[in-house]
């Protein structure tokens, strides 16, 4: 349970770093080709960062919930997958879903076990 000061500091840190993560994601997210690579990259890097934070024993609210949470996104993944389905690229939508499921989890595992 967080104390009053920790709560205020946590909210501020989550807000600032979440904002930074969102701006970075916005720019990285423009990278697109066969799949929406930008969002996949943002989700994978965010998971790597979250894994590194946990592995190094500083499971910081600011880093994991703020920066990694702001950098990664589920809603844009859902929108892009829907766009792929509605434009007739169903196989790509499945591939995008599998990639966004496995690569971020794999990145996190790498961070936890190696970093």
């Amino acid at each position, binding site marked *: 349970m*967080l104390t009053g000061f920790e*709560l205020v500091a*946590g*909210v501020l840190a*989550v*807000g*600032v*770093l*979440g*904002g*930074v*993560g*969102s*701006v970075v*994601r*916005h720019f990285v*997210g423009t990278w697109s080709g066969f799949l929406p690579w930008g969002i996949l990259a943002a*989700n994978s890097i*965010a*998971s790597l*960062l*979250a*894994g590194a934070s*946990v592995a190094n024993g500083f499971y910081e*609210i600011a880093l*994991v*919930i*703020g920066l*990694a*949470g*702001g*950098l*990664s*996104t*589920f*809603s*844009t*993944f*859902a*929108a892009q*997958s*829907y766009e792929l*389905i509605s434009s007739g690229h169903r196989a790509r*939508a499945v591939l995008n*879903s599998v990639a*966004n*499921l496995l690569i*971020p*989890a*794999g*990145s*996190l*595992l790498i961070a*936890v076990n190696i970093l």
Partner: protein
Amino acid sequence: MFLGGALGSIARFSIFLGVEQAGVTAVAIELVATSIVNLAGAGFLGFVHSKSFKESEKAKAFWGSGFAGGFTTISGLALITAGSGLGLSELGYLYWLMVILQFALGILAYWFINSRFDRAKESVN
């Protein structure tokens, strides 16, 4: 964009704290809270991308990439499945199943809300 992301991240953090108040276990907190934010966020983005939402690109960037993007998370899902070791445990298949279900429901939530509000706008016009 920055403000939308900050607001979305704080809203996500608040939901995590709210679920934590319910006194459930750490893994359940992450699973329940992540499911809530991701499904609600995907549906909300469906509304932002619909014809009923404002035409302004600034408003779309604030509420779409900013707020909905900052509100939802995939790194949180990775933490549940891989980070907590649940995805590799004996019951790992259950967690993978729930995460896969969340992916499918997220896409459905986006489609459902988006098409509803598109139709609502068309019927007004």
